[in-house]
């Protein structure tokens, strides 16, 4: 990969966040201060993981886009451990931030309690549970539609008839994507066999890589890379990969065919609009992550545009249109997937 470094952020404040959760849980979380815009809406994000975590990163990317395009003022804290979650949320709420975004999976109860004590602040959190009146809205990565489309490509591209998926752990957010991926593969290739591996953590690329290698030895030749590390294994072993969450073609253009992409911007845009108008309500914003709302899609094919067989492309394009038109619904299956 090329040696590019993203723009250096300005650290205007630094937080020492010492987590009581684990032995290695010491973290330095930085608050980034964006360009001052007095008229802009003040939006903060509280992330439980480092910003590289693919899930949180998509929220972060959408908020940066909102900073540019909608003129919001954006600050964030990352790697906020459970013990600090309430304090960091409160700090933002007290400092006049009108919208606080984040992922609540590690701290559902805490996030909801804090939200209750600031009824005038809008909270929008990634959550597996429902919204809570009056001000706690939720969203989630409802991107099973492009995961299904990716599975169709995998089912068509496999030569061995075995497709794999390497994922973090069997939680609903992961299961529904992996299951949709396999459902897509099965639809176009009913005899396809599936391989599933969970690595038991969110960040262990060497382990994810080893899990992918084990699947490749078991004949898998298209693997859904839910976590970092899988694409590298596929590249080394000369099989195909399906990326996850963002367009990761640049890691290995010849290896990564495409993959589901989550775009949180429509969700953020909607929430910002409602807060600005003073009509933010506690609702499930999950719908804004669907393809129909522009909240998710397949990653661009890049070089694969020329390499994918025309019939495969046509098949996927047709199904994509069916989904957009509302004529096809991808089942949400949150059961734990298993290997055949």
């Amino acid at each position, binding site marked *: 990969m090329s040696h590019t470094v993203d723009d250096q952020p300005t650290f205007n404040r630094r937080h020492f966040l010492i987590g009581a959760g684990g032995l290695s849980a*010491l973290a330095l979380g930085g608050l*980034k201060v964006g360009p001052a815009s007095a008229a802009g809406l003040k939006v903060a994000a509280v992330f439980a993981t480092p*910003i590289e975590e693919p899930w949180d990163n998509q929220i972060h990317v959408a908020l940066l886009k909102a900073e540019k395009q909608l003129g919001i003022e954006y600050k964030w804290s990352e790697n906020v451990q459970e013990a600090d979650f309430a304090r960091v949320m409160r700090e933002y709420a007290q400092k006049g931030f009108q919208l606080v975004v984040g992922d609540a999976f590690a701290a559902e109860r805490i996030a909801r309690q804090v939200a209750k004590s600031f009824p005038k602040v809008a909270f929008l959190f990634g959550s597996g549970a429902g919204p809570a009146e009056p001000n706690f809205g939720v969203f989630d990565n409802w991107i099973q539609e492009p995961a299904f489309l990716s599975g169709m490509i995998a089912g068509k591209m496999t030569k061995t008839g075995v497709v794999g998926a390497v994922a973090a752990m069997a939680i609903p957010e992961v299961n529904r994507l992996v299951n949709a991926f396999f459902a897509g593969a099965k639809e176009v290739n009913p005899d396809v066999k599936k391989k*599933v591996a969970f690595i*038991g953590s969110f960040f262990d690329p060497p382990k994810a890589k080893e899990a992918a290698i*084990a699947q490749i030895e*078991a004949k898998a030749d298209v693997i859904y890379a839910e976590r970092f590390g899988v694409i590298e294994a596929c590249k080394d072993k000369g099989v195909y990969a399906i990326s996850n969450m963002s367009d990761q073609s640049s890691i290995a253009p010849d290896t990564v065919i495409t993959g589901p992409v989550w775009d949180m911007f429509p969700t953020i845009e909607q929430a910002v609009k409602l807060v600005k108008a003073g009509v933010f309500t506690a609702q499930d914003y999950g719908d804004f992550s669907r393809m129909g709302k522009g909240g998710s899609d397949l990653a661009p094919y890049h070089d694969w545009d020329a390499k994918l067989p025309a019939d495969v492309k046509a098949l996927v394009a047709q199904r994509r249109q069916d989904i957009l038109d509302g004529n096809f619904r991808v089942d949400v299956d949150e059961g734990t997937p298993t*290997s055949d």
Partner: protein
Amino acid sequence: MWGLVDQLFQVGFLAALVRIATPLLLATLGEMLSERAGVLNLGIEGIMLIGAMAGFSVAYFSGNLWLGVAAAMAVGMVMAALHALLTVSFGLSQHVSGIGVTMLSSGLAFYIYRLVFGQPGQPPSVTAFQPLPLPGLSALPVIGPALFSQHALTYIAFLLVPLSAFILDHTPWGLSVRMVGENPHAADSAGVSVVARRWQAVVIGGGLMGVAGAFLSLAQFNAFTFGVINGRGWVAIALVVFGQWRPWRCAAGALMFAFIDALQLRLQASGLGQHVPYEAFLILPFLLTIVAMASVSRNAVAPAALLKPFRKEER
């Protein structure tokens, strides 16, 4: 099921086992050396993380992977020196200091990575170490591709086993390291500087821990991410006990853990997952390490002065 059996007799399984064992082996040898001198180093988890970060960062900017490995070793030594200062020179609790070193190292690794790389959406990467087939040996059937087409760091890690056994058992320096770990007052009477010897063992051990981390970010993978150590340091501490503070047995422990880990990844890919929850597979290496450790360590005798600070005037 037959697919699984077939897979276990493949070269790939043996190769994966050796690959997975490498960072554990380096870390375990480092921890063993430190403990043989009487100093438990719980800083290992953090030292491995900051080693992975430093190794990656230096390799990224210099374009030289070996420079990265050297940097990881140097940073590991610096963090271990802090532990030596607190526990050997100041005689503080080894447990408290070790945990402190892990927390400080983890925090520093995070902080420095952010200062250097900012908040990249996709972690920046380097071209990692490529496997280095040994001429002649790699042509052997089965064990050639499995054992002799590995990373250079893997060969080094495994050569360190006989080397450290030789140094500990057959050199004056090794003898004095064991003495300060067993009976520092006797060593002191014999004219050995207990403080110097402990410092040396702890610092060299830290260097190995740093390299263990760099193996993860420069050989087994090509980028640094924050959770990358993921408990491997704590596993190494258990493996030292399992290995009864002896290099060959520590190596056997690392290989055993890696064997189960490579096995469970293949079990997950087999149809067994339809009958057994995946968590059961994931926990296997840890479970068996605990079982093995519990059965073996009954007879194990830790270095007598482990955890005991040395003060010349005290007995």
